[in-house]
């Protein structure tokens, strides 16, 4: 059951002119959060902007005794709400409702986990990676961006015991090209008898490519989709995604039926718009 917290901003770490990590004091949400879940955040009082914005839970913050104390959000400045969040200073308060949505299911060994992130789609993978590591699952993050300066928090993953494989479109850091091509290259080197589970989050074309790679290699793949969301609770039917249901496309709500979906169920050609 989600809770609504009037959460104090503990810190707001600007990673670049567009990216920041906002840490929020929200023990009740932190205690319930599972990998891949999200919160609905209202970064300012008043009616403009009116609605909350969905954000993946990036980190579960713990106090010195290890008890859940808060969460952090990886924010990219793209519109009014994300700009307000970027500008928040420590001590400010934001309404934060969660945790919400269907989480990722971490796989167990001997299966290996490959997490595929593009841009701000990195957000759900730290909590997932930690959950996978805790199970002893061999975990790799494939993380792509346009340029080296747009790759963030890599050390944070390495510290969590996650192998990191970077790509940039210009070749400035890691492999050159799209992250999904790197995944395909690694799948070519992996015997089909060794189980690998893919998890993807990023721009729609990237997730579609990841789904196509997974399908062609016969690998299971879960994607975390995000649509424009009204309520986050299943009330408004705004955030629907097209999924295949008995060979017929059907709209499901990404807030309660997702945001995590089996990639093979998504009607990708209908999702792109």
């Amino acid at each position, binding site marked *: *059951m989600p809770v609504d917290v009037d959460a104090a901003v503990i810190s707001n770490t600007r990673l670049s002119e567009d990216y920041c990590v906002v840490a929020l004091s929200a023990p009740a949400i932190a205690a319930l959060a599972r990998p891949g879940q999200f919160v609905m955040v209202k970064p300012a009082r008043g009616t*403009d902007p009116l609605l909350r914005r969905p954000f993946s839970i990036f980190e579960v913050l713990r106090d010195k005794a290890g008890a859940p104390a808060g969460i952090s959000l990886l924010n990219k400045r793209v519109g009014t709400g994300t700009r307000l969040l970027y500008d928040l200073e420590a001590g400010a308060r934001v309404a934060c409702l969660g945790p919400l949505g269907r989480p990722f299911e971490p796989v167990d060994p001997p299966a290996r986990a490959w997490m595929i992130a593009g841009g701000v789609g990195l957000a759900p993978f730290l909590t997932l990676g930690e959950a996978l590591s805790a199970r002893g699952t061999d975990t790799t993050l494939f993380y792509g961006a346009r340029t080296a300066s747009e790759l963030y928090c890599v050390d944070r993953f390495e510290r969590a015991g996650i192998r990191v494989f970077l790509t940039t479109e210009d070749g400035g850091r890691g492999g050159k090209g799209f992250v999904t091509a790197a995944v395909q290259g690694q799948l070519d080197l992996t015997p089909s008898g060794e189980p690998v589970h893919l998890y993807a989050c990023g721009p729609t074309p990237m997730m579609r490519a990841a789904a196509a790679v997974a399908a062609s290699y016969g690998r299971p793949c879960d994607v975390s989709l995000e649509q424009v969301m009204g309520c986050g609770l299943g009330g*408004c039917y705004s955030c629907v995604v097209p999924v295949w249901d008995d060979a017929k*496309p059907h709209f499901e709500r990404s807030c309660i039926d997702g945001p995590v979906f089996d990639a093979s169920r998504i009607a990708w050609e209908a999702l792109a718009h």
Partner: protein
Amino acid sequence: MDLSVSIGSLRLANPLIAASGCFGYGVEYADIVDLSSLGAVAVKGLFLAEREGHPPPRIVETPSGMLNAIGLQGIGVRRFVAEKLPELRERRAVVFVNICGSTIDEYGEIARVLSDHEGVAAIELNISCPNIKEGGITFGCSLTGTHAVVSAVRKVTRLPVIPKLTPNVTDVASFARAAEEAGADAVSLVNTFLAMAIDVHTRRPRLSNIVGGLSGPAIRPIAVRMVYECRQVVRLPIIGIGGIASAEDVLEFMIAGATAVQVGTASFVDPFIWTKLLDGLRTYMARHGIDRLADVTGTIDTSKREQAWISS
């Protein structure tokens, strides 16, 4: 303190109703809202058959409001009574079922299905959805169409019949009167205002349906005016709708003439708004020495305003 209100023969514990299209089928909220604590729950509009609705993007924010063009995605009335109504009954929700038809016969058929089931308190007629091509608003924008739909449903059910009116007409009050003459038990108003938003960089409409319905605080003063106008010409209970987000907003509609209200967009922002609204209403009643909240309805005092205008 008595917060109850009456809509015809129906007594509601308080005037707060979850607005159709903004609260799913109610069951989505059952774990976070005590459904029995609401005056009523108006469930998402239902056709006879299932519908997929419009492709996304289905909503876009605008100043102090939002546009939606969901397109009445829904499971159809038969799945509703089989899959959702039992839980709503178990949760002791007062259920208003919002129905929509492509034809007058379809409205009648859905009303017949609902009349056969325990747990439906009232039927709200959606003759005002701006986002679908067939039916619905076609009837709501014509006085004869409004009269015909209400009459047809009136003939087949003993449940309270509440047409939900569109503001996208010149004179809403004449539609309220047509509904009253056709035998409606109450009217609810207003549905959303037909509107649009364009991305100037891509020059594309922000909604896949091109146009959608505007809701939220942006429309509230217009909705209050429309409730006030309808109060002048009909004796029916009026359910006020439009951008309500505080107890003061509820009271504004009631003073203008509403017996009850619906809250929609504001519950997206704050799903726990209901207890806050009830607390605010009690505070107001205590402050003004009001025992029965229903006594507030229609108590607007325009006398001094009119005098001021005449003497100036």
